[in-house]
């Protein structure tokens, strides 16, 4: 069992409050990813869990045991660092057995555990090498091996893939996913890369300015973000936001008017909205379609098109000079400055009130 519970955790450096009261439950076998922009406190949170930072207030429990004040080594956690932090003068074998030797385990136990970890990570031929004789991916695997041998309750990863090149990152990402499956371990993973967050996690924790914005499965977060920050943070390219005013609203739906005059009826519960209040419409690039200008919701002028082969991302300026990102098929061709019509998938749009909180979408009527 490895249930991690964090209660009202706060951490300040001097006057600067980095973590402003974090509450979080992590269940056994979960792969939890902390994601957020730089400086949001995700690494500090991880380091507080590891015991490398003293917390200012709050509690951390691992199962029923409080570990808030415990020394890092006694918390039953293992951490993989961004720089791998391998001991440079020790062989791979010694790197992996170091913790066990410090814990004074018997030679046979150490050897069998190291051999097992080496087998899992395919490090057997490298056991007698020094870290500097290894490639980036191999060092990464040694760092993971070093935490596996300790058989911790929770694995902590601090941006482990950010030092690898793109191809290797994809490969290590798959290996990590497999490792999580094979070890049936609880893993907490910090990253600023949303692809890693979306692909690896069972549960994503979006952090911003020391607070949790939303917790949920990757798809939950993608399809129903709780607020504008989460909506804008997840998804590549980013969701487009258009300011709008409410024309009429009730619990059946909301009618809004965009800055360029177009009015849209959204299947969003607008019971809390008032007429003429300011709202923000959020649309993902894949929910906008290029259509014939005469039968479109509104029109825009094509600014830049990025052709990626499989898709083309068009950046369109509306008549009120807002930028929309539109995902079109890879064979879409269009000229700079051309007027194009745009249609929205209204049931996939998000509406945020003047506090940037998402308004609940109405249950879609079964088609």
């Amino acid at each position, binding site marked *: 069992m490895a249930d991690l519970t964090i209660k009202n955790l706060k951490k300040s450096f001097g006057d600067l409050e980095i973590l402003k009261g974090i509450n979080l439950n992590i269940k056994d076998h979960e792969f939890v990813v902390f994601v957020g922009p730089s400086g949001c406190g995700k690494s500090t949170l991880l380091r507080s869990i*590891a*015991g*490398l930072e003293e917390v200012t207030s709050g509690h951390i429990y691992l199962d029923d045991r409080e570990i808030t004040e415990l*020394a*890092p*080594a*006694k918390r039953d*956690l*293992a*951490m993989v*660092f*961004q*720089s791998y*932090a*391998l*001991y*440079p*003068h*020790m062989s791979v074998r010694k790197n992996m057995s*170091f*913790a066990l030797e*410090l*814990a004074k385990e018997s030679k046979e136990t150490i050897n069998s555990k190291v051999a097992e970890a080496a087998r899992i990570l395919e490090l057997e031929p490298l056991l007698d090498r020094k870290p*500097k004789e290894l490639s980036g991916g191999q060092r990464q695997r040694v760092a993971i091996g*070093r935490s596996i041998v*300790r058989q911790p309750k929770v694995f902590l990863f601090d941006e482990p893939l950010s030092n690898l090149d793109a191809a290797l990152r994809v490969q290590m990402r798959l290996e990590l996913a497999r490792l999580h499956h094979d070890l049936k371990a609880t893993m907490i993973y910090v990253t600023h890369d949303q692809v890693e967050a979306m692909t690896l996690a069972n549960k994503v924790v979006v952090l911003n300015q020391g607070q949790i914005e939303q917790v949920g499965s990757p798809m939950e977060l993608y399809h129903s973000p709780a607020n504008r920050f989460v909506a804008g943070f997840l998804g590549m390219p980013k969701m487009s936001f258009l300011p709008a005013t409410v024309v009429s609203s009730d619990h059946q739906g909301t009618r809004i008017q965009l800055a360029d005059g177009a009015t849209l009826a959204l299947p969003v519960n607008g019971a809390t909205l008032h007429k003429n209040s300011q709202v923000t419409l959020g649309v993902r690039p894949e929910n906008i379609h290029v259509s014939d200008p005469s039968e479109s919701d509104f029109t825009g002028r094509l600014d830049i098109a990025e052709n990626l082969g499989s898709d083309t991302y068009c950046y369109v300026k509306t008549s009120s000079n807002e930028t929309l990102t539109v995902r079109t098929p890879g064979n879409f061709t269009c000229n700079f400055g051309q007027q194009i019509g745009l249609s929205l998938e209204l049931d996939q749009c998000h509406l945020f009130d003047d506090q940037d909180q998402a308004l609940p979408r109405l249950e879609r009527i079964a088609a």
Partner: protein
Amino acid sequence: METKTLDAGAIRTSKDAAPTTGGVSKQKARMSRLMVSPSVLLLLLWMVVPLSMTIYFSLIRYNLLYPGENEFVGLENFHFFVTDLGFMAGMTNTLLLVGSVLLITVVFGVLISLLVNLAFWGQGIVRVLLISPFFIMPTVNALVWKNLLLHPVSGVFAAIWQFFGAQPIDWFSEFPLFSIIMIVSWQWLPFAILLLMTALQSLDQEQQEAARLDGAGPWALFWHLTLPHLARPIAVVVMIETIFLLSLFAEIFTTTGGGPGYETTNLAYLIYSQALLQFDVGLASAGGLIAVILANIAAFFLVRVVGKSLTEKQ
């Protein structure tokens, strides 16, 4: 460390790439050889002329008190120097001096730099103060110690001894070699601190955190991470200090003058006394050559044994 190896690789590849241009690069190589030749020749002369003169002097009878009697005597000068009473004393003192100063500077250097590496108020000033003895001239250093600190009547140490009602010690007559070791250690400790302190700053923070998670206490951290990290700078300290300490002279000259008896005479001082106190240039030249050979043996061992084994660990 990583970037260093990368740099080396980059340099190597650029070197390898150069000769592919054929004739042009050959010409370039000849040109560059031509350009450096004056300095190489000058350095060669600088080294070869004094060396051959020393070898020549060591093989003839050459005493300034008996001019004109410069006949060839073979290895007689060497024989005299080695069987001289002062030779064994000089050898032992040289080794004792070098060994103990190295031990003191390395051990205290590591401890002090670990201490100074912790964050505290006034760190900058303390660091400058720690380094400053190194900027004091050896003669001045020795005089300060001789007249202000160790003097049996007016020295600070004597005052302390008297304060506790003890009999002040006449350091240079009771513990002459120890006094010299003390003075020289004081002079060279800053050098060790300087190198070790900067090395400590490059100790990887995440490695220490990883070790803490692995269950390493302060002692294990020091033994398994800090000390191996310092192996290279320690090797550098040992090598450089050995080179300078083998030829230690000013401190002995200004304080004890090699005495009492031969108690503080090292090889450098012995050679000086042969040449300029006994006016026997031939004998001093022979001594100088022996010292050169000894220094080379020491350097060989240091570079091969100490340097290599320590750097390989990294």
